[in-house]
C-alpha cells in the first residue's frame, strides 16, 4: 500500500478504540437501546453513552449536558446553521461565514440564501487568515450567526476564534458556531474560553470511527447576559438528545468516539513536536525541488497539515503520478470526472492552474521519518519527470 499521508481526510481507527467498539457489539449485556429505561439492558447501554458523553465533553472543556450526538461533523454543522437560522428567523436572517469554510458549512449557507437569508462570505488574507475586525465589520443588527472553522481542513491554518467570540458576545445577537472537526488532538480546544456557542466535532478525524460526531451546544449563555443559544430541531421521532436530534443512538459508535477523544487528550507535547518536526522535514524536502509554494500561514498552523503548490506540472497528472506511491489529497474537490480547482486556494489568490497542482499532506500518529523521506523521494522524481514532459523543467 502507498504511504498514507491523508490524515486530514480521515485517520485509521485506534486499535484500542476498535477493540472497545467490538466488545460493545459482541456483548450480551451492552446491546440494549440506550433510551430504554424499563430494563437493565437499556440502563447499561445508557450508562455507556453517558460515559462517552463525559469523555467527549472533557476533551473540549465542555460539560456533558452540552454534548449532542450526531452522525458526524457535517450533520453537526447542518444542525447548528439551520437550527439557529430557523429558531431566530424572526430576529434576523443574516449569517457571516468565510469563503474558505468546509462545504458542510458553505452548502447550508447557500441553501439558506435560496430560502431568503443573506450571507456575508469573508475573504481571508493570502495566508488564509481572517482578521477579527473583518467579522466586526460584517456584523449587522440582523446577524444571528457567525460560522467559522478553527483549523482549516485544506491548509491547516488556525483562526483567532477567541477574538471572534468576544466580538459576537459584544454584538449580543450573533451566535458563534465553530467547526472544530480538524482541531481535536491537533491544537488546544477549550470550548468555554473560546467564547463559542456551538462547536462541531468529528470522531474519525481523531482516530475514532466514521459515522459519529457531536455538536456542543453551550449552556452557559446566561453568564454572558444574553441567554442560551437555542436551536430548532431538524429531525423528529423520539425526542432523544434534548429533542434536538431524534433517533436511537448507536452505542458502539459513541463509545468509540468517547474513547478516541479521551486518547486524544493524552497526546503529549512530545508527539506534537514530533509531528511538527516531520512537517518541517517534509517542507524542507519539497522546497528543495524549487518552484513550490506553501499554502497557508506557516506561523499559525497545526503541524498535521501541509499544503503545497507545484509550479510547472498539471494537477491531474501530478496526482496520478504520485498515487501509486503516496496517498495524499489534491486541493481539489473531485465533483465530476474533471477535478475542480480548490476554492480555498483560489480564495487565497492562487491561480486556477496552481490551485490544481496542489497537494495536501496530512500527517498523523502513524507517520514516520521513513514515510516522509519516501514521499519526498517520490515527489522529487515525479515532479522532475512531469516538468520534463511539460517543457517546464526550469520552473
Amino acid at each position, binding site marked *: 500500500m502507498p504511504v498514507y499521508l491523508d490524515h486530514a481526510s480521515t485517520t485509521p481507527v485506534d486499535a484500542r478504540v476498535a477493540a472497545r467498539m467490538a466488545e460493545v457489539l459482541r456483548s450480551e449485556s451492552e446491546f440494549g437501546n440506550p433510551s430504554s429505561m424499563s430494563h437493565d439492558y437499556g440502563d447499561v447501554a445508557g450508562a455507556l453513552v453517558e460515559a462517552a458523553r463525559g469523555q467527549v465533553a472533557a476533551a473540549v472543556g465542555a460539560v456533558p449536558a452540552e454534548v449532542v450526538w450526531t452522525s458526524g461533523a457535517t450533520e453537526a454543522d447542518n444542525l447548528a446553521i439551520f437550527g439557529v437560522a430557523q429558531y431566530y428567523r424572526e430576529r434576523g436572517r443574516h449569517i457571516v461565514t468565510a469563503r474558505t469554510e468546509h462545504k458542510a458549512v458553505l452548502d447550508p449557507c447557500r441553501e439558506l440564501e435560496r430560502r431568503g437569508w443573506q450571507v456575508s462570505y469573508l475573504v481571508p488574507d493570502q495566508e488564509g487568515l481572517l482578521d477579527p475586525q473583518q467579522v466586526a465589520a460584517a456584523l449587522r443588527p440582523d446577524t444571528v450567526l457567525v460560522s467559522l472553522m478553527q483549523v482549516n481542513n485544506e491548509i491547516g491554518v488556525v483562526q483567532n476564534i477567541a477574538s471572534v467570540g468576544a466580538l459576537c458576545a459584544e454584538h449580543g445577537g450573533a451566535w458563534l458556531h465553530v467547526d472544530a472537526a480538524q482541531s481535536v488532538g491537533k491544537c488546544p480546544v477549550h470550548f468555554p474560553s473560546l467564547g463559542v456557542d456551538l462547536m462541531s466535532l468529528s470522531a474519525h478525524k481523531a482516530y475514532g470511527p466514521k459515522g459519529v460526531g457531536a455538536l456542543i451546544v453551550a449552556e452557559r449563555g446566561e453568564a454572558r447576559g444574553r441567554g442560551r443559544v437555542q436551536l430548532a430541531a431538524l429531525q423528529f421521532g423520539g425526542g432523544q438528545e434534548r429533542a434536538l436530534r431524534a433517533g436511537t443512538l448507536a452505542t458502539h459508535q459513541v463509545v468509540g468516539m468517547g474513547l478516541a477523544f479521551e486518547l486524544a487528550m493524552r497526546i503529549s507535547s512530545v508527539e506534537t513536536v514530533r509531528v511538527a518536526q516531520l512537517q518541517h522535514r517534509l517542507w524542507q524536502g519539497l522546497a528543495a525541488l524549487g518552484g513550490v509554494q506553501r499554502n497557508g500561514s506557516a506561523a499559525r498552523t497545526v503541524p498535521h497539515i501541509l499544503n503545497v503548490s507545484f509550479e*510547472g*506540472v*498539471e494537477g*491531474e*497528472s501530478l496526482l*496520478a*503520478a504520485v498515487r501509486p506511491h503516496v496517498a495524499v489529497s489534491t486541493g481539489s474537490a*473531485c465533483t*465530476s*470526472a*474533471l*477535478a475542480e480547482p480548490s476554492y480555498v486556494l483560489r480564495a487565497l489568490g492562487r491561480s*486556477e*492552474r496552481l490551485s*490544481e497542482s496542489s497537494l495536501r499532506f496530512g500527517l498523523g500518529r502513524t507517520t514516520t521519518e521513513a514515510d516522509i523521506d519516501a514521499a519526498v523521494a517520490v515527489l522529487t522524481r515525479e515532479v522532475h*519527470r*512531469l516538468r*520534463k*514532459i*511539460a*517543457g*517546464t523543467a526550469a520552473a
Partner: protein
Amino acid sequence: MNYNELTRRYFTSAAGAANAGQLRGADVFRGAAGDREQGTWVQFDLQIRSGKVTAARFLAFACPHTVAVSAWLTEQAVGNPLRSSLPESVQALQERFAVPVEKTGRLLIIEDAWLAAAVPAIDYGV
C-alpha cells in the same frame, strides 16, 4: 479518475521513453496547440526525411490521457509515411485509451498540434 492499462503504461513511461522532448534540425517540423494557462498544451516535433517520419518527440502540459496519447502517437509515427492526419482518428484514440467524453477537446488539441507540425511539412514537400 481511472485510467486503462495502456494509458497508465504510456503515462508512467513517457518521460523515460526517448520520445519526450524536442528535436532540432532543418528537417524538423514543430507544431503546438493549446495553452498551459488553460490547462492543456501539446507540442510535437517531427523529423521528416524522404516523406517519412524518421523521429518524433512531444511535450505535454496535460492530463495523463493527453500525455499517454501524445507519447503513443510519436511512437507509432516513426518509420511511417507522413500524412495530413493523425496516425489514428480521434474517435479511435478515444476508444483505445478510454478517454472520457468530457475530455474529447483535449484529443482535438493533440490533433491540432499534430497537424500544425505535419501540414507545413507536406506543403513544403519533404
